[in-house]
């Protein structure tokens, strides 16, 4: 077992499950947001001075950066696979 495989096994619990969890969580958050936006209470945003728009904006900033970090993680995984592949040859 290469050191990289050992490392991967150790931290595998954040892998696929973590990504799925993130997707479900973000889908849930967006559905909550759209529920409020389409409810009959048109003044929902205005009653709270539209603070939920700011919360949504911060959430988008955060999720955007997390999305890019997942993209980088995928690139790193490919590099690890490449190294493993060359060592096994």
């Amino acid at each position, binding site marked *: 077992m290469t050191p990289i495989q050992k490392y991967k096994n150790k931290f595998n619990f954040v892998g696929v499950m973590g990504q799925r969890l993130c997707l479900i969580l973000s889908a849930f958050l967006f559905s909550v947001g759209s529920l409020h936006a389409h409810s009959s209470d048109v003044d929902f945003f*205005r009653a709270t001075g*539209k603070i939920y*728009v700011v919360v949504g*904006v911060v959430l988008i*900033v955060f999720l*955007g*950066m997390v999305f*890019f970090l997942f993209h980088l993680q995928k690139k*790193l995984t490919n590099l690890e696979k490449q*190294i493993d592949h060359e060592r096994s040859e």
Partner: protein
Amino acid sequence: MAKLTDMNYSNWWKYLGIAITVYVIIAGFLVPLNPGVVNVEPGRVSTGEEVVLKVNTYNTSYDVSPELIRAWLKLGDGSAIQASGIETTGPRSLDIAFDIPSQLPGTSAIQDAVLVIDHPGSGLALLPSAVFIKRDTSISTTTASEWTASIQDLHLHTGFRFPFRNILQETIRNTYFHVAIWFAMFILLITSVVYSVKYLRRPELDHDFIASSLVQVGILFGLIGIATGSLWAKSTWGTYWTNDTKLNMTAVSLLIYMAYLVLRQSIENEEQRARVSAIYNIFAFAAMIPLLFVVPRLNDSLHPGNGGNPALGGEDLDNTMRMVFYPAIIGYTLIGLWISELNLRIKRLQFRLDNRQYQ
């Protein structure tokens, strides 16, 4: 060939970036807004009328000692009348009665008046152009002006508070999250242009790696900026996208940068790819400056801070906001640089792996 671990990546500025961003989020959310007037009904009155204005306010506590509330209507030339009666209908709503005089100073038939409400516990609340007053020509006017009230002893809030803008309300805080991310994007893209120029002066592939990893994070920030702006537009303008000059020009310049990514993908040879994309990057940046900073100012725009004036002046960005806005730019830039450094390290690793130089 140097070892990979010989690369010196310093960390202190990353901690600084985190600390600044945490400060920005805490201050940006917790500092309260000044009191303000949300809406006034009716918005049109004529001279000689006795009107009761139904006023909704924000961040006020008019139920505490309501007898101390005073209100005025002030015209453009500075003359004003005081309210004849004020009834508190809640902490954030008032019924204010005005006896509009039978004559209007000046010559214009319709004038707009500022509603000024003062209360010791809440502070000063204003609404520019709250009421339009129309001259009723059927009433014979007296020559003596009745617009003689003087506005004094106002209770200005002295604490650390953000200004209240009628349309923006709490979303004025987006200055620290939406506007700052555009500034950070701009700084990242400038830095990448520096490295593109460096590559053209001395063709080292590492310069190309630095430039391209910065552009990628710059595009990410641009997309975040578009998405956050779109969410705000939905709540304020009622639509995710309008054919506003500023919005369209931003989309165009982002598409120009997206083409940079496509261009890089399409060239196999590393040196050729580096040279072509360095030149393209310089042109993309040169195209972005008029698209983002010149064209939107030549036209009217719904976007806050536009329509002739830049956002970094007047009351759209006062000194309390500057204390959060400028750190926000620095914080986002540092986090963007951090993400681009990770991106860069992957590129360097990939390069060494592909060229068998890691052994």
